[in-house]
């Protein structure tokens, strides 16, 4: 089974802090994603990466950056956390299946910025 793990389930940070969210997948997937999930807004893509050191902005990249130094690990960085970044953050990785890509999600990190 594919496993996507995230470093923390719950995280509380102060405004202005630099925050690192880590995601690791164990299936050698090329693609990795960071989403933010808020009530009524569904899953919104922040960044994705299709290879080591490669990244592409998603729909809401402002205030975030990412790092992918190794294939299995994709980090989301909040340079200076703000209260409007309080949210559930989901990491996913994808593999080619039936000529398209099926995404596997991690358990999520619920971040609270105070």
């Amino acid at each position, binding site marked *: 089974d594919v496993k*996507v793990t995230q470093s923390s389930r719950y995280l509380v940070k102060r405004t202005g802090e630099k925050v690192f969210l880590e995601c690791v997948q164990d299936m050698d997937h090329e693609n990795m*994603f960071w989403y933010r999930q808020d009530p009524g807004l569904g899953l919104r893509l922040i960044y994705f990466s299709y290879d080591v050191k490669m990244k592409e902005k998603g*729909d809401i990249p402002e205030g975030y950056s990412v790092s992918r130094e190794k294939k299995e690990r994709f980090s989301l960085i909040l340079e200076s956390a703000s209260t409007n970044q309080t949210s559930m953050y989901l990491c996913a990785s994808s593999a080619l299946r039936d000529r398209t890509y099926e995404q596997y999600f991690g358990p999520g990190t619920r971040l609270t910025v105070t």
Partner: protein
Amino acid sequence: QQPVQSPQAVILREGEDAVINCSSSKALYSVHWYRQKHGEAPVFLMILLKGGEQKGHEKISASFNEKKQQSSLYLTASQLSYSGTYFCGTEEGTNAGKSTFGDGTTLTVKP
């Protein structure tokens, strides 16, 4: 652009049927369906590729109408375990591997 899901929420009794729709204004290559239970990560259900292919998984099936850029998820004889939020993810042909998700449809199945 985000696909539009309807309805936003539905409440059923066990054994009843439901249909969840997902529409896009863009030409799609595929549609994915996921279910997320409260407090858990979304879990993949099925993928549909352009061509109007219909798929099934136990009592849950889906179709993809390429002309309308619309997919429908059919839940037949619903069970309590079907409760959760259903998301469609759409993939355009030019963005291999990247899906855009709808807002989700919350399904509640009551005894």
